[in-house]
Structure formats: structure tokens, C-alpha cells
């Protein structure tokens, strides 16, 4: 743990120096990777991601101190955890194809080992790790193809060389490389349709690992697309960015829909990662679209909005995952339907979770509101415009943002209301006790940052603006922060979150005063009104499933819930029911229609292939002959 903390501290310091100074830090050695060389160059864009990863890593390592997760205490996990965090810090600094792929693979493998940390305790961990491993490797292969294609055609593997040759490469090379990069990085970021590993891996991974994965690792997917699309290739035709926006929009809506209808707390948070990644992709896509249609100032604003959301999402997602792990450790439950009544029993973790959840819902005065506002502003100012892609994409973007925002508000109310408030719905929840201070402290620090950055976003804005400008390669002197408010130049859009927060506090105090005026005595604790019912139990409350039921009904075409009613009749007469059981399950539409047929097809292929070698020497000789002929034909 100390190792991780030191690594994070170092990383943060280097990143901060680069961000404030603007001079990239470089490091090169030919020793680590013979033939390819190992070179690092940390510019402002990479530094932003390193700073974020360092912050999250530091919090996660502090959290580990109190975490009683069995898996993470093993020797393998203790070795791999610092390795994973270090890789997260180094990947944004890679400046050649070889270095990048080497570090990327190390990061992927170490994260897989960490996901497997609990495999002795639960069986589902192995299946989750299988999915995760396959998809990670698929992403890595696609990235390999993309970057090697670029390197071959540019004649060298350093990023600087490729970006210098970038405009001169053939258009098909650029487009193929970009699409492959989007696929590869998108799968790492958890964008639809390559997101299926997220809701499987996150619930099974230990708490700090989930936090790192969601708050630091998926950022690298975003980093990759911005790096390849904007810096290395220097922007491209509008259809590239429309593709990114489409993926983003789909992820946002799908992710928020599933998070609002999911009853497992960590699965809910995993889907909300997909949702936020979708919003970030919307911003990145909008930025590229603006750049390709000539609105350079707006491109900077859109990218700033996206990167700001990256930073803020990491902060609140880290806090959410860490507090969800605290809740899981305190109650022993992960299912929202079994939680409840935790605000009084977990007096520190409860409010921390609430603050982070409010940030997720993009409510003022927290920081999530600021980044979503900026994203909306950037999309608004794209209209009216002469270019058709902009005219179509921007209103669709606002629609997607609105729907995702509304569904996320539903998610937050469900998670906080059913999970923390009301009466406890199970023994585990009723008997829970507060977790150690390192656990709620780590999560609480991030929650505090949510509030601080929400009131004073100008603390982070200069760094983010610098990163965006370095990523795009240009940027007019557009001060987005003017004193206490943020806004676009010329006053076309202005927001003073600090003033809003102050106004809210003053108004709430006034309301409290008003309430005091005529108050007679103290507040009376009374039994909840249940229409005079004699007995009221905790089972009469709404559960997460029932809370989400109207949403499931409205969206049942997409969600297609499976309902199962098992009725067993009494032996004496068919008219008497002995017991009835109702099961409802919501699975992922992409899994159902995409992955399951794919994996069934692959296993059919595998079974077919297994029948081929049947022990007969003649058949094997025949295979050899056919293979030889094919090779001769191809090579000739």
C-alpha cells in the first residue's frame, strides 16, 4: 500500500508540474524493451489523466487499509495492485507504439489478476474474469492492428513521427486506423456495444479495484481516442466524430436505462460508468465535429467539457464505488432490495454516498452539474449552423443528455432512497456498524472534492483547458473561468456555481428559520401513517425492483424483462395454492442478441473443429496437403 501511495504521489507531482508549466517531461531508455525502445513523454493531455489516476490510486490504496476483502490480502494481489496503479500512471505518458502497447498489456493483465482476487470465495468471479479477459484481449488486438497500421505507413513508431506524417497518410489508412482505435479504446472505456464486461467485472472485483477500474482505467479509453483522433491524426472528416457521438449517445441512454432498473448496487454503478463514458464520448465527438467543420473555438470548449467530465466522473465514481464497498462490508449485502435504514447506522459512509450520488445526478451545487452544463452549452452554441451534420447531431446530443440525465436522477433516488433510507430490509442491514475511518475517509475525501469543485470549478479549469488545447494542438486564448463564474467568452453562457451554492445555503437557512417560528416544542417521533394498519413491517416498503417497475414498463421493448411465476398447488386439490414464487430478471440486450449468439456460434465452430481430427492418419495427411497448397498459392 505504501508503494502505491508513493507512486501516486510521484505521479501527481510530475503531472502537476507539467500541467502548470506546460513543458512536457520526457524519458527514454532502450534497455527495457530491446528493439523497440521505451520512451515516455508526458504532455498536458496525458498529465491530466495521470493526475486523475494518481488521485484515485491514492484514495484506493488508503481505502485498502481498512478493507477486509479476503482476496486483496493475498500475496499476488499485494504485488499486482501497485503494478496496476503504476501502469495506469504510465500509459498516458507513452510516446511510442511499442511502449504504449507494452504498458497497455501490462495494465490489462494486472487488472485481470486483480479481478480474480476473490476467486476462492465466489464462483461468479471466474466467469466474470473470463468475460473481462476475452474482451480486454480483443480490445488489445484491435489496438495493436490500429497502431501497427499507423506505424507501418508512417515509417516509424514514435507518436511524434506519426503525427508529423499524419496529414500525409492515405485517407483509408487514417480512417481504418481511427475506426479500429475507436473499437479498441471504446471496449476499454466500456462503450456500447463492447461494454458487457463492465457490469460483470465490477461487482465481482474487490472494492478498491472496482474504483480504480471505473475511475481511472476507463479514462484511458477516452485518452486513447483523443490522442489518436486529435493529436496523432490531427482531426478527420465529420463521419469519424459522428461515429464517436453515436456510440456515446447509445452508451449514455443504454447505460442510464440499465442503471435505473438494476437492483445490484455495484452493477448499477457499473452501468452508470457506461452512461458517463457515453456522455464523455458525446463531448469528444462534438469537439471533433466542430473542429472538422471549422468551429475551432467551440471545439476547444467541447473538449474542455468532455475532459472536465472525465475528471469529475473519476472523482465521484471513485467515491461511489468506495462507499458501496463500505456498505457491502458493513451489511454483507450488495442487493439494494436487502438494504435500507443505513443513514442512522452508517453515520459517515451514508452522507458520503449521498454527496457522491447527488454529483452523479448532475445536481447543483456539485461538480457533476458544472461539467454537464458546459457540455450542454457547447452543444447549444453549435446551432444554428450551416453544416448538416451539426444541425442533426447537436439536438440529438441534447436529447440524449436529457434522457440520460433524467434516468440517472431516477437511479440516484433509487440507490440512495432504497439503499440508505427508510427501514432496513434485512438482518444484514439492520445489524450494520460503521466501517473503519480509512474506508469512509478515502471515499469522503473524494466526496468533499465533489463539493469543492462544484462550488469552485476554477480550481481545475485552467489545467483542463491546457490539456484540451494540447490535445487539439491549438486553442484561442479563451478564458473559460472569469473570477467566480465559468462561461463562454462574450457572456453568451455564464454560470456562477459558487453563487448558486451560496444562494441555496442562505435559502435553506431561511426556510429552517421559517420552520422554527411557530414551532411548538420538539419534533414528535410517531409511527408512520399506514391507514391505521395494526402491523407495519419493513417488507411493506418499496424495494428497488418495485421502484424501477414503471421505468421497466415504459422501456420494456428494450429491456425485455423475463418474468417467471412458479405456482405449486396443494396435493388435495388443484384449486388451492401451496406456494407461489415470482422471479424477474433483466439482462443486457446486447448480451442477449449479440454476444450469446456469437458465443454459441463460436462453440458450434469449436465442436465442429473437434470432430475433424478423428485419429485417422489419412485425414491428417490430407490436412497437411491442403495447408501446403494454400500457403504456396498465397505466397506465390
Amino acid at each position: 500500500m505504501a508503494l502505491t501511495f508513493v507512486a501516486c504521489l510521484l505521479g501527481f507531482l510530475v503531472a502537476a508540474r507539467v500541467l502548470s508549466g506546460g513543458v512536457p517531461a520526457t524519458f527514454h531508455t532502450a534497455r527495457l524493451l530491446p528493439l523497440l525502445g521505451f520512451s515516455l513523454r508526458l504532455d498536458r493531455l496525458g498529465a491530466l489523466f495521470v493526475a486523475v489516476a494518481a488521485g484515485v490510486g491514492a484514495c484506493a490504496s488508503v481505502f485498502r487499509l481498512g478493507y477486509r476483502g479476503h482476496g486483496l490480502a493475498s500475496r499476488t494481489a499485494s504485488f499486482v495492485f501497485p503494478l496496476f496503479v503504476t501502469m495506469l500512471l504510465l500509459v498516458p505518458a507513452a510516446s511510442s507504439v511499442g511502449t504504449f502497447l507494452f504498458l497497455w498489456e501490462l495494465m490489462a493483465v494486472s487488472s485481470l489478476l486483480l479481478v480474480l482476487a476473490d476467486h476462492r470465495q465466489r464462483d461468479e468471479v471466474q466467469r466474470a474474469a473470463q468475460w473481462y479477459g476475452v474482451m480486454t484481449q480483443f480490445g488489445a488486438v484491435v489496438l495493436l492492428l490500429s497502431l501497427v497500421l499507423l506505424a507501418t505507413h508512417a515509417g516509424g513508431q514514435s507518436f511524434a513521427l506519426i503525427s508529423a506524417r499524419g496529414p500525409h497518410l492515405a485517407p483509408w489508412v487514417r480512417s481504418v486506423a481511427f475506426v479500429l482505435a475507436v473499437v479498441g479504446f471504446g471496449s476499454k472505456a466500456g462503450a456500447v456495444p463492447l461494454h458487457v464486461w463492465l457490469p460483470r467485472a465490477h461487482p465481482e472485483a474487490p472494492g478498491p479495484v472496482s474504483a480504480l477500474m471505473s475511475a481511472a482505467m476507463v479514462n484511458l479509453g477516452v485518452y486513447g481516442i483523443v490522442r489518436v483522433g486529435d493529436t496523432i491524426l490531427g482531426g478527420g472528416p465529420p463521419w469519424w466524430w459522428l461515429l464517436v457521438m453515436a456510440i456515446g449517445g447509445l452508451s449514455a441512454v443504454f447505460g442510464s436505462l440499465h442503471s435505473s432498473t438494476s437492483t445490484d448496487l455495484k452493477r448499477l454503478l457499473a452501468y452508470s460508468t457506461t452512461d458517463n463514458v457515453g456522455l464523455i464520448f458525446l463531448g469528444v465527438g462534438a469537439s471533433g465535429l466542430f473542429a472538422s467543420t471549422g468551429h475551432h473555438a467551440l471545439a476547444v470548449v467541447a473538449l474542455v467539457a468532455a475532459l472536465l467530465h472525465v475528471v469529475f466522473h473519476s472523482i465521484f465514481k471513485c467515491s461511489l464505488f468506495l462507499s458501496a464497498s463500505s456498505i457491502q462490508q458493513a451489511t454483507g449485502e450488495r442487493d439494494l432490495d436487502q438494504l435500507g435504514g443505513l443513514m442512522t447506522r452508517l453515520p459517515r459512509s451514508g452522507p458520503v454516498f449521498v454527496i457522491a450520488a447527488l454529483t452523479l445526478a448532475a445536481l447543483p451545487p456539485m461538480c457533476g452539474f458544472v461539467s454537464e452544463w458546459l457540455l450542454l452549452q457547447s452543444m447549444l452554441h453549435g446551432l444554428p449552423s450551416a453544416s448538416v451534420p451539426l444541425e442533426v447531431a447537436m439536438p440529438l446530443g441534447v436529447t440524449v443528455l436529457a434522457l440520460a440525465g433524467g434516468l440517472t436522477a431516477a437511479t440516484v433516488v433509487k440507490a440512495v432512497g432504497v439503499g440508505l433510507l427508510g427501514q432496513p430490509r434485512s438482518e444484514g442491514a439492520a445489524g450494520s456498524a460503521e466501517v473503519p475511518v480509512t474506508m469512509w475517509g478515502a471515499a469522503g475525501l473524494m466526496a468533499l472534492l465533489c463539493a469543492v469543485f462544484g462550488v469552485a470549478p476554477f480550481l481545475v479549469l485552467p489545467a483542463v483547458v491546457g490539456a484540451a488545447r494540447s490535445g487539439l494542438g491549438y486553442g484561442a486564448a479563451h478564458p473559460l473561468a472569469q473570477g467566480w463564474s465559468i462561461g463562454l467568452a462574450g457572456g453568451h453562457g455564464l454560470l456562477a456555481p459558487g453563487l448558486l451554492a451560496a444562494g441555496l445555503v442562505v435559502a435553506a437557512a431561511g426556510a429552517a428559520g421559517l420552520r422554527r417560528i411557530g414551532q411548538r416544542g420538539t419534533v414528535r417521533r410517531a409511527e408512520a401513517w399506514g391507514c391505521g394498519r395494526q402491523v407495519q413491517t419493513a417488507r411493506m416498503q418499496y424495494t428497488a425492483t418495485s421502484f424501477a417497475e414503471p421505468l421497466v414498463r415504459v422501456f420494456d421493448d428494450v429491456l425485455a424483462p423475463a418474468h417467471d411465476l412458479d405456482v405449486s398447488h396443494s396435493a388435495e386439490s388443484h384449486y388451492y395454492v401451496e406456494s407461489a414464487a415470482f422471479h424477474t430478471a433483466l439482462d443486457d440486450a446486447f448480451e442477449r442478441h449479440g454476444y450469446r449468439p456469437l458465443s454459441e456460434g463460436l462453440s458450434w465452430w469449436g465442436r465442429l473443429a473437434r470432430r475433424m481430427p478423428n485419429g485417422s492418419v489419412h485425414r491428417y495427411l490430407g490436412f497437411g496437403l491442403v495447408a501446403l497448397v494454400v500457403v504456396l498459392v498465397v505466397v506465390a
Partner: protein
Amino acid sequence: MTTHWPLSSVVATGVLQVLGVAIGGPLLVGLMRKIRCRLEGREGPPVHQPLLDLRKLLRKERTKPEAASWFFGLAPLVLLASVTVAAAVSPLLATYPALGWSADLFAVVFLLLLGSVFLALGALDTGTAFGGMGASRAITIGALAEPALLVAVLALSIPSRSSNLPTIVSRSLEHPAWLASPERLLAVVALVIVIVAETGRLPVDNPSTHLELTMIHEAMVLEYAGPDLALVKLAEAMRLTFLLALLATLFTPWGIAAAPGPARLALGLASIAGKVAVLGAALAAAEVLVAKLRLFRVPELMAGGFVLAALAVIAGAVR
């Protein structure tokens, strides 16, 4: 665009605006109730009855369900605070609102969402079945109203190239032709649908129902008593008044004070009060004629609102 008014004017405007919404809110609710009663053939309570009810409720006992935590008491405070701040930052009386240029139309939308979320959380904190039911229904409708609302806001912001409320209102005053354009009219209708949903009026929700299974908003406040209930009722009334005033200002901005001065402020106050009264009366009369929609028809209504808002954006883009 950023003209500066003297600080005294700004403070006076702000205070007057917030007080106006706070006192005018219950008065508006009383007026709407009176109109409904008269149209139904009854005499009805006096128009200032809601103010008397608030005074009575403030002096009653405060109760709290056993299962509730401190959240239960926080929710009415945040609800009232959010609508107060929204009223303070919007140009209702004057084109230079109190908190200056600190918030725009998008921020107002999110402020109202903050209030709704806290109310729903307070309802879930009671640990009763009705609280959960009200919260679940209200949040579903709110989530589905968001796209319509934000796209309508987008349609309003495109012509003036800004979502800043004072800018939109000032530009509308300068270009009266915009107010009759198809995109404005479509956006009005979309906003009316959304306002009906957000404030819990017929046909989405009946505010005077006693049947718990038909309740959406009322189910969330069944456990609040005394001063808490007073705050919640005041916040509801302020929300309705604020949204109607915003609608009036965005679509018929004449009468608003465009420069400082007590005479102009008084004219602004009178004009906005008149417009809100007219809108409220129309809403009340419509409520008498219309029946409550089945709960699972409300998403269709929201989708209809969204289509109208999207058409407004397209109409704006085509021109």
C-alpha cells in the same frame, strides 16, 4: 449586453421577486381553487385561504416517522431553497435579476430537478409503501419530462444564441417577430405539457385526490405535518407560480422592467402578476374540463411533448 444596474436596484428587485413568488404563490393557488369551485357551481374558499392555511400549519406540531433519519427534515428545506434560488435568478420583474448573471435556463431546470430529487428521497425515508410509490411515479415522470424540457429550452436558446435568461428576454423584446414564429409556439405547447407534469396538475396528477393509489405528488407528502407541510406546500405553490411566470416572461415579455427605477419595477410587478393570474385561471378552467390520465399513458404525453419540442428545434434550424 452586460449592463450594470446600481446595487440597490438589484437588491430591491431580488427581494421583491422572491417575496412576490413566495406570497403570490399561495394566492395563485387560492385563485385557481376559487375558479375551479365557481366553475363547478360552488362558492369556494376565499382567495387568500392558502395563506391562512400556511399560518395555521406553521403553528402545528412537527412529527417524524420512526424509520426516518435527518434526511426527512432536510428535504423540505432543500425543496424550498431550490425553488427560491430559481426564482431569484430568473428575470421575472426585471431583465437584470437579483443574482446577476449567475444562472441560465439550463441551471434553472437542474435546480428544479434538485428539489424534486430531494422530495422523492424524503418520501422514501418515511419507510412507508406510499412514500415509495409516490417517489417512484414522480421520478419516472420527471425522467421522461427531461428530454422535452431540455429540448424546448434548446429551441428557446437558439435564436438568441444564448441560454442566459436575461439575454433571451432582452433579445425577445428587441425582436417581437420571434415571439410569433412557429418554433416559439411549438416550444410554448411543449413547455406547457412539461409544466403540467412537473407541478403535478391535471391531467397528469390530481392535487386534491384522496385515493392514495391515484396519487403521485401527494403520496410523497403524506407523512409531513405542521411546519414541514407548510414548507412543502409553499414550495409547491412557488414552483407553480415561478414556472407560469417564466412561461409568461419568455413568451410575452412586454411590461418587464428593462431599466432601473421604482415606477418600472412596479409596472413589471403588475404585468407579471396579471399574466400569471391569467395563465393560472386558464389552467384551472382546463382542469375542470379534463380527466386524469392513466398513469401509464403519461409517458405518451411526455413523448408528445418531446416531439413538439424537437419540431420546434427543427423549425428554428430550417429558417
